[in-house]
């Protein structure tokens, strides 16, 4: 894996200062002087998302999709269609439902322009998320036919996460990452943070569909 560079947008930095006060969490820890969640709170004081351009080497592995069909990951991602990829797990309570709903919303906003867009959500909890679980999850979020939900062997999933610089050791430290790839391009746009559907649709339109 080789990084070409990381360009944090200036706007995002500006926003970081502007939104510090509005993004603080509403913790109820009353025991002053003993703030167990200081780290959490600090992490919350960040802007909605940052975008950077990265190069990743997609591992040569096979995963399975929500129908139980085997999927060659390199073939799936090395395509002349634009790709949007994220990492989720179906029992995740906090950020994954948001990420999945945002993907669905982005797809709706793109309308016909997004017809060729390949949506890929890879489970980071492969022991639990078997194809039937992914299928039910896809239905819950009314995912269309151009959207694959993938699972596989735990070791392979860890390899995928490492390849995309998204391995956090435990699914409970899961970070919201969205990866966008132009047709035929080797580089990816990496979006860290929870972008809105409009933001994502905008990124896809400007970076992938132009």
């Amino acid at each position, binding site marked *: 894996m080789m990084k070409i560079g990381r360009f944090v947008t200036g706007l995002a930095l500006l926003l970081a200062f502007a939104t510090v006060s509005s993004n603080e969490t509403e913790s109820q820890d009353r025991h002053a*002087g003993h703030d167990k969640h200081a780290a959490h709170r600090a992490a919350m004081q960040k802007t909605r998302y940052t975008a950077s351009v990265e190069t990743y080497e997609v591992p040569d592995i096979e995963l399975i999709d929500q129908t139980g069909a085997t999927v060659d990951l390199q073939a799936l991602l090395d395509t002349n269609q634009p790709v949007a990829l994220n990492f989720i797990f179906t029992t995740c309570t906090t950020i994954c439902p948001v990420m999945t709903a*945002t993907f669905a919303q982005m797809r709706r906003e793109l309308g016909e322009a997004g017809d060729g867009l390949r949506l890929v959500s890879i489970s980071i909890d492969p022991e*639990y998320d078997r194809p039937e679980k992914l299928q039910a999850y896809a239905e819950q979020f009314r995912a269309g036919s151009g959207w694959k939900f993938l699972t596989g062997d735990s070791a392979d999933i860890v390899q995928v996460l490492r390849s995309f610089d998204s391995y956090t050791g435990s699914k409970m430290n899961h970070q919201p990452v969205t990866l966008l790839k132009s047709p035929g391009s080797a580089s990816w746009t990496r979006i860290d943070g929870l972008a809105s559907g409009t933001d994502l649709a905008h990124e896809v339109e400007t970076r992938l569909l132009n």
Partner: protein
Amino acid sequence: MSGRFRYSAAALLLLASFIFTPAIASDAEDGRRIYRDGVLPSGEPLTAIVAGDVPVLGTQFSCQSCHAQSGMGAAEGTYIVPPIAGQFLFAESPQPARPAYDNDSLATLLREGITPGGRQIDDVLMPRYRLDDEEVAALGTFLEGLSSEWSPGVDDTHIRFATVITDDVSDAERDAVLAVLNTFAEEKNRNTRLESERWDRGSTPASRLPTVHRDWVLEVWELTGAADTWGAQLEQRYRDNPVFALLSGLSHQSWGPVGRFCERNEIPCLFPGADVTDAEQDDFYTLYYSRGLELEADLIAKHLAEQPVSSVVQVYCASGPEQAAARLRAKLEGSSVAVRDIAFDCEKSLPKDEIGKLLSAPNDTAAVLWLDATQIAAMREDSPSARIYASATLLGGLFESLSGSAFVAHPYRLPGKSDPALARFKVWAKTRGIELTSPRRQAEAFFACLAMKDAIAHIGRFFIRDFALDTLDHAQSIVVYLSYYPRPTLGPRQRFVNKGGYVLPVINGQADTKDAAWILP
């Protein structure tokens, strides 16, 4: 007149008791559905906007999905979800400062994301919900009662747990497991024995609060007789001496009646050593190591699907294996495989002739032996021609009881692989003089104690059962202490730590692990 007044007052009271009590109850029920399922009183899903512009449904985003069943909040990665149970919501908060919520300000928060302190909260994760005043009031009524008091089984000095053991468990196994549980509890109590005197010695406000430490009291609830009487026995023990949770446990029969008892009374049951769980789809209160023999049946079914035979014959005597056999039979239903059972009385001797005939059947017959190592050793057939399957759980790891070649359903770490958690547990046991006569059961009991200790540490001074279970949803890090199971995972609403296993070839008593593939049925 006064008589008439009394009459109308009484009538009013009567009316009030008819109208208001059910009104509050139905309010709380409506609120419960909004909170838990994201469904409005009309039966329609709640609608909301999240991350600024993403429309979502309550069925995808109920309050509970983030704020947890207890309403005590959660943290995931770098995102923190505040507690919203009534005692927090309807009270003033110093940090960040805001006055107590009432139904009006709750409505403003839910619809617009503005707290009564005037602060706009993050809309990345907290949706803006479409709720009318009545729906907000119903939700408020539910939150008022949510996690509003301590669960039974705790007082100012003690927290009580019970270990359920059924009478089919041998004394040796029972004593081996109890030695672990009792030692763990005694040690925990010894380590925190001075905590109750410490609470007012510090200088920070937190250190002046009463201690959160409670001495563990462990009871053993032994169940006797038929399984259909266990429910009543448990209810009786619970009435006499309520416990906060069930800890560990042992049975070779179905854990079903104990599981039902826990759901009925909303009692957490952490990691029973159960061969058959009989858990139901939406069960919340019991966490298991795996689906036990039923998982093994699924592993065998999967193996049979890949390497088909024309007939399957299952041999068993005990009730746990009988359920596993039923599971495998159900899995094979609809296929062209003929399934037959040889059931016998455990008290009597093995039907050796019948089994002998089965083992010398052609190799398109699979003999599934739901038997223990002693039973299998007793029917030794030197060169069986049928394909043989056995259960690692029932064999207790004693592969040498199998002659010739066979397959073992093995939802455990591969034989010969290093098991750091087990090594650690062995040291713990050795330094405490505990002999490991039932190592897997004992290691499981040890992990149950660690999980309980972790949950109790996390809930702090809020002794609320649902909160304890909610914290375990996010306790993925504790599974490194679990021995025997190679790929343990915890997660929200996941109730089986181990989900898969192997089907290992065993040749002349030796497991062949070189091509072992992890199967997730």
